[in-house]
């Protein structure tokens, strides 16, 4: 299942050597998945972008932790204090919505969104399809964004029933998500043109074929 594992144990190892030969071997497969995340940062990209990706990761991890906290809080309140919390479930659900969009952004930066690969491609065909799919994705984001702004505005005044969170804050996740996705797609395309397929794949930035 885990996203990274499938991408490439072998590619990962190669790219790790490229970056910092001293890196200790990952303890096990579960964690090896993530070692490739560091490797992916190896491709020369603007500092601002690296910081953005790191920030997205940090927020993603924090949201996973928050999810655990809210769901556990619900169990504890029910069984230990005998009084179920009203707000925990709602906050957990909102956390998942944000997690999806923030996570989707950095997954895009690592090119790990699930792609169906039907054929083996020459380098030129790869670049051509890369361009087409990038244009499709950026168009989707650009069409959705203006509507998103309106959508968020119309929801700011509405408050969630249990936790009292303005729904606009939740709906803003999609807005932020699509904006970040568009940025990463554009950067990925520039990187693909500038460094070529081989360098991209050597850095562990390989499209995911599937993930279950």
């Amino acid at each position: 299942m885990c996203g990274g594992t499938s991408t490439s144990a072998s590619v990962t190892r190669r790219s790790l050597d490229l970056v910092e030969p001293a890196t200790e071997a990952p303890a096990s497969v579960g964690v090896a998945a993530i070692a490739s995340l560091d490797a992916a940062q190896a491709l020369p990209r603007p500092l601002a972008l690296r910081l953005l990706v790191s920030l997205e990761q940090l927020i993603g991890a924090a949201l996973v932790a928050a999810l655990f906290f809210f769901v556990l809080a619900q169990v504890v309140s029910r069984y230990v204090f005998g009084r179920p919390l009203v707000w925990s479930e709602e906050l957990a659900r909102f956390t998942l919505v944000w997690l999806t969009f923030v996570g989707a952004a950095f997954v895009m930066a690592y090119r790990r969104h699930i792609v169906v690969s039907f054929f083996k491609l020459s380098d030129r065909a790869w670049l051509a399809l890369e361009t087409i799919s990038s244009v499709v994705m950026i168009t989707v984001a650009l069409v959705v964004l203006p509507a998103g702004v309106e959508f968020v505005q119309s929801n700011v005044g509405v408050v969630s029933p249990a936790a009292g969170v303005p729904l606009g804050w939740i709906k803003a996740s999609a807005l932020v998500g699509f904006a970040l996705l568009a940025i990463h797609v554009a950067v990925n395309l520039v990187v693909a043109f500038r460094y070529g397929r081989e360098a991209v794949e050597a850095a562990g930035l390989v499209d995911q074929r599937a993930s279950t």
Partner: protein
Amino acid sequence: MNLFLLVAGVLGLMVVRVPVAFALLAPSIVYVWLSDQLTMNFVMLRITNALDSFPLLAVPLFIFMGMAANASGITERIFNFCEAFLGHIRGAHGYVNIAGSFAFSWMSGAAVADAAGIGSIEVPEMVKRGYEDRFSVGLTAASAVIGPIMPPSIPAIIYSAVAGVSIGAVFVAGIIPAILITGVLCVYVFLYARDKPHLRLQRATPRQLVRASGGALLSLLTGVIVLGGILGGVFTPTEAAAIAGLYITVLGLCYRRMKVRDLYRLCVATAETTAGIMLIVAGASLFGWILAREQGPQTIAAAVTGLTDNPIVFLLLVNVLLLVVGMLIDPLSAMLIMVPVLLPLAIGYGVDPLHFGSLLILNLMIGLLTPPVGIVLYVLSQVTNIPLPRVVQGTMPFLLPLGVCLLLVTFIPALTLWLPAMFGFR
């Protein structure tokens, strides 16, 4: 006509390597744009609402749990435990492999986590002990299918969200099919090892047995928390996932296999996998809504019911269709696209949604073992360093026993429906 263009659009975009989530979104957005009654606001509403769901919360929590189980050395403890108890039987490591997957399936909901974790330990061990590499890797691939059939199961969570049935019921429906696969694979190992008496270890001493049990006891308790909690009605599946995840984390930290720093990495990896899946869920939700609005299920139903009015023939056709789809598309995307179309049809033929879910999940999991998109094959090839063509060769013979299981699950509804009824899920 609209319907045809929509579906063709999605498939066409997938062929040119647009990520699945966007391949679903783009034609749907064009549809909304062309429509007089729908606005882009609706797109945003639909995709955010699809994610705002308590059952789906179980997805990240179970993903974390499976990864944490691999990272904390629990996989190895289970392996040692199985080896101690089964080592003296002829064909021992075949059974150890299956039993390991079976035990691991209680704490993992995905075939790939199972293949990566168990495969990296068991395949080298089996090859060292004189088993053919093709057999070892094929068996590992086949037994990895148990993971997502046995609860907890990520595909089952997604199915229950799309089909609108209770997660608990879909989980419980998977238990007997999982045991069935385990049994059938054991028969396969028995036949394989019939004339190979050297494939066994010395019987473990009582002392070794106690040691191995002690090492694995706390790990095996995870399954009790998940299954017991859900079956006993103590927790919802989402809550069970959170508690078991916390429990495995504490175990891993106590066993000193996981450091606090690894926790951060596990959370990032969980966020990564979750986002990849959930973005597709969001896209599929919009796409599925439009399909329903365009009367997609009814149109296809009319075509299919023209072909046959026999539920058995219908289920056979569904199985063939799903096997083909499963070979080409990853299971979750396939499920999200196919369930809104096929489930109403199946219900029309009098097939129970639980029964349908089980055969659908098993079918698509078999698709994980077939090229060109057999992700389990890629993972196994990577973690064992056995070349992909050999992994494929080794796995092919196991499609037969798995196919037998699929047919049994398809045509004996009691296998999936009896246990949920026992536990009062209907």
